[in-house]
């Protein structure tokens, strides 16, 4: 009898391990897809966050723009030079807002590319906050002496020049913060209002006010009359554009990351007040130089100031609502990212559970076979040993022979069942039936 013991190749993995590896291999692409899906949300979230930064940076700048153009209107409508008190009010507003804009810039400068170096690189050195503060310092010094018309004219030109710089900076921030490339229809049209429509309207209010003052001061002439009519048209177009963009924002709100609870309630009121102030201002402008009604420079200035204030209020409400829309978008994307990762993890877990169950259904009959074959090897070895001993014995025990036969027969039955079960698992029921018919032939004949 051979004493060689069977060897086991320890480097071979078990069936369960192999099934687990198959699941792991299939989980890998799911993991990669989940990563790519989640990674796809990240730039969109970051872009919305940069837009919020851009919007925040614009808020004090718009107040500065409003203050500068209001100051210009005050100075232009100030015949005697006794408008110091009104001007001081605007000067304080501009100084405070410029300071706020500068401190906000310290927070967002890198993201919005508004550092001195970045602006210099893009040929916008005069838009840096240092340059703007220096420009403003010059204007406040000049504002102390506005007794002569020449000084007032020079100061008004200075205000206009700085307002131009602020408008350029607003536009630059709109570009660098990607506000101009906003991907959603509702926020895109709100950006159109805050970034383009309102600054344009404030400028047209200023221009129309200036021409109207000229007409009132110098009497009616055809050239200025035509210029005023042209500016009124541009102002009206600008107002119409804001109203149309505002409407699109309202219409598109529901389709983009859900309905904002504050957009319509808050912005509708602000729009109404803006429209009303603009209608009054345009109506007043249309009477200037016609000779039908005597309009004073003070009345035009007051209407212009009221229109500019309503425009700024509308802008502030719009900017706040833009923040709400952008925050809703960020929340939506963050939820989407969590859902993508959660569903992917769930898919992997479900696949693992199913693979575990399938794996168990495969390994169970194998374990049964191992359980039957294991003691069977010992049984055969010992049986052979006993039969050999009995063949040499003078008095062989018939009881022992019967027990050996009985156990061998039982073992053969067990093996047959295990092989059938294995065949059923490996090749299906038909192969198992074929094996049954084959095994029942010679064994039971």
């Amino acid at each position, binding site marked *: 009898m051979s004493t060689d013991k069977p060897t086991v190749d320890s480097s071979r993995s078990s069936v369960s391990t192999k099934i687990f590896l198959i699941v792991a291999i299939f989980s890998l692409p799911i993991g990669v897809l989940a990563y790519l899906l989640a990674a796809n949300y990240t730039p969109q979230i970051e872009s919305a966050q940069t837009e919020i930064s851009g919007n925040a940076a614009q808020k004090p700048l718009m107040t500065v723009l409003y203050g500068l153009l209001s100051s210009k209107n005050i100075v232009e409508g100030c015949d005697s030079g006794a408008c110091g008190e009104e001007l001081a009010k605007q000067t304080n507003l501009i100084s405070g807002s410029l300071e706020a804009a500068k401190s906000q810039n310290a927070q967002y400068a890198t993201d919005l590319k508004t550092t001195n170096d970045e602006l210099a690189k893009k040929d916008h050195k005069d838009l840096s906050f240092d340059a703007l503060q220096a420009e403003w310092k010059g204007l406040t010094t000049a504002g102390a002496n506005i007794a002569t018309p020449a000084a007032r004219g020079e100061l008004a030109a200075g205000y206009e020049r700085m307002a131009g710089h602020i408008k350029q900076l607003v536009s630059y921030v709109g570009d660098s913060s990607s506000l101009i490339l906003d991907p959603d229809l509702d926020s895109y049209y709100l950006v159109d209002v805050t970034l383009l429509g309102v600054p344009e309207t404030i400028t047209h209010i200023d221009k129309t006010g200036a021409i109207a003052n000229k007409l009132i001061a110098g009497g009616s002439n055809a050239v200025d009359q035509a210029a005023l009519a042209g500016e009124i048209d541009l102002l009206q177009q600008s107002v119409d554009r804001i109203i149309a963009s505002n409407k699109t924002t309202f219409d598109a709100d529901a389709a983009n990351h859900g309905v904002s609870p504050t957009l319509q309630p808050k912005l509708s009121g602000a729009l109404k007040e803006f429209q009303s102030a603009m209608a009054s201002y345009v109506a007043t402008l249309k009477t200037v130089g016609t000779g039908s009604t005597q309009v004073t420079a003070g009345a035009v200035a007051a209407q212009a100031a009221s229109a500019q204030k309503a425009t700024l209020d509308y802008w502030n409400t719009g900017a706040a609502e833009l923040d709400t829309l952008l925050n809703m978008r960020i929340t939506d994307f963050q939820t989407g990212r969590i859902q993508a990762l959660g569903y992917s993890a769930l898919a992997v877990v479900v696949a693992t559970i199913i693979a575990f169950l399938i794996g168990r259904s495969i390994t169970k009959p194998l374990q049964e076979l191992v*359980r039957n074959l294991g003691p069977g090897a010992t049984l055969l070895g*010992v*049986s052979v040993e*006993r039969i050999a001993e009995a063949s040499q014995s003078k008095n062989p025990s018939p*009881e022992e022979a019967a027990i050996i036969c009985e*156990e061998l027969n039982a073992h053969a039955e067990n093996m047959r069942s295990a092989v059938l079960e294995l065949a059923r698992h490996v090749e299906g029921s038909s192969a198992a039936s074929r094996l049954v018919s084959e095994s029942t032939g010679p064994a039971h004949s």
Partner: protein
Amino acid sequence: MPSPAYNHLLSLVSLYVDSKKAAEVLARQLTACKLTADTIASADIKANASRFTTACGLYIADSVKREELKERLMAL
């Protein structure tokens, strides 16, 4: 319900042979002796100890352990 004597016998055999296989082997031998697990008594075990040892011994490769089981069964 198996008798205490059967449980004792099974636990002893299970020390040498896989318990499931031990139960199978003992079931066959009890049938051959016209006994049942529920009714078998210590006296029956003693009377058939040789048969149980022979049957269970077929599943024990080590002859020393086979002898040990035989002795313990006889001592029951």
